[in-house]
């Protein structure tokens, strides 16, 4: 294996990526899956984790382009150069460009996107070309590579671990943070009267208040909430979440961002996630959800989207008929849009901006209006 001259590498282990331009050769979700699968190839042999951004600057920007496309390496039509990528660093470093004059496919009938993406990601992480013809990082595309199951060669593993070391300790050892993160400048302040939340969920009798890349962890037996980075407990979860809820009976917290959802049990993100939110039964028009809460008695989960809400039956694991309905009709006094919601002591607590509405689902009325941060002992 080889690294780039000067051995550039990322100084952090959690990286972000964003798909800027798609190819028309494949459906978008096929491109998304190929990129996710390629990322997993490197995640499995290093401490690195990746999360996807849908806006703003990510470490690794991915685009399908043709011919001259704004850098010094124009593409050359079908064949020959398939793609290129830049070594770790700021700005365009780390980025990946695919030549959209190729015929990108999920199998090897054309140019297999997963295989080329895994190779180019090797460059984005700091690997140069390898002389080993068996290695993924060999420069010549080998369409006969056995894709199922795909395995990195030892040469690739030696190369990437020379930069980042082996994967973190086995998942059995929980990532228990030694102390909560002191709030540094630029981090959300719990007693800011204008504080709003991205998402809130219960977890095994505690409450998690998510904001940006952090969360406050509140339990009933201590007054002062702990303050942590989301990535301390769940490195592969994104920041700026949209919603979260606990399915008590299955001891799982579901976390939502954009059109994806993750399932976490304790410290563990469950295999097979993220999944698309449409697997729950949302219509394609729903691009993201604002808030979610599961009524553990009735085994019904409520999903709030702008002015409306859906109800999901946890027993049949399906979205109920007759939805969406207007929030104003069934939760009078709750002001959309709902940022976050959770259930406690038989009430639903709805959060909208810096206001919190305590809602009695039996009396069907708001019983108290509070400041959003009233749970954080200000």
């Amino acid at each position, binding site marked *: 294996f080889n690294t780039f001259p000067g051995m550039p590498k990322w100084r952090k282990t959690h990286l972000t990526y964003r798909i800027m331009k798609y190819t028309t050769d494949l459906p978008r979700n096929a491109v998304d899956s190929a990129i996710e699968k390629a990322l997993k190839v490197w995640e499995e042999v290093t401490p690195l984790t990746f999360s996807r951004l849908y806006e703003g600057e990510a470490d690794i920007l991915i685009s399908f382009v043709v011919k001259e496309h704004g850098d010094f390496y124009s593409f050359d039509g079908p064949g020959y150069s398939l793609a290129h990528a830049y070594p770790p660093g700021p700005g365009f470093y780390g980025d990946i460009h695919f030549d959209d004059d190729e015929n990108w496919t999920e199998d090897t009938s054309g140019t297999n996107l997963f295989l080329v993406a895994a190779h180019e990601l090797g460059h984005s992480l700091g690997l140069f070309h390898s002389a080993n013809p068996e290695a993924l990082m060999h*420069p*010549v595309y080998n369409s006969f590579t056995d894709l199922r199951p795909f395995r990195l060669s030892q040469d690739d593993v030696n190369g990437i671990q020379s930069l980042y070391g082996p994967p973190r300790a086995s998942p059995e050892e929980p990532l228990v943070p030694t102390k909560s993160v002191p709030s540094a400048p630029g981090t959300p302040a719990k007693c800011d009267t204008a504080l709003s939340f991205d998402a809130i969920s219960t977890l095994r009798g505690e409450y998690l208040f998510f904001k940006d890349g952090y969360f406050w962890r509140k339990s009933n037996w201590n007054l002062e909430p702990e303050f942590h980075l989301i990535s301390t407990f769940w490195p592969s979860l994104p920041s700026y979440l949209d919603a979260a809820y606990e399915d008590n009976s299955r001891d799982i917290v579901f976390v939502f961002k954009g059109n994806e959802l993750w399932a976490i049990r304790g410290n563990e993100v469950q295999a097979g996630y993220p999944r698309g939110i449409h697997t729950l039964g949302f219509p394609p028009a729903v691009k993201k959800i604002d808030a979610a809460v599961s009524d553990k008695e009735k085994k019904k989960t409520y999903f709030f989207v702008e002015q409306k809400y859906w109800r999901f039956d946890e027993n049949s694991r399906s979205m109920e008929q007759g939805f969406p309905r207007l929030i104003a009709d069934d939760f009078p006094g709750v002001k959309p849009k709902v940022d976050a919601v959770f259930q406690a002591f038989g009430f639903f607590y709805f959060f909208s901006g810096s206001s919190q509405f305590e809602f009695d689902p039996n009396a069907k009325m708001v019983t108290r209006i509070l400041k959003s941060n009233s749970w954080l002992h200000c």
Partner: protein
Amino acid sequence: YPLSGAAKEEDSNMDLAQQYLGKYYNLKTDTKQFVRRKDSNLIVKNIQGMQKLLGLEVTGKLDSDTLEVMRQPRCGVPDVGH
């Protein structure tokens, strides 16, 4: 005289090789040369560098294996750091 078939093919192989080596091996085509010589020291060295990195027999010549690899699809990142 019109180029004979063999000479024409040799010429196009030379084009391919110069493009490939220029793109991936930082070969600076020597503009002072009036006649492109496939045995110019510069080209031979670049061909050997490519054959070595890509696991081919290091002959320094544009043999069929080497030409075949030059025609194969590959990553656009150069093999010799630009």
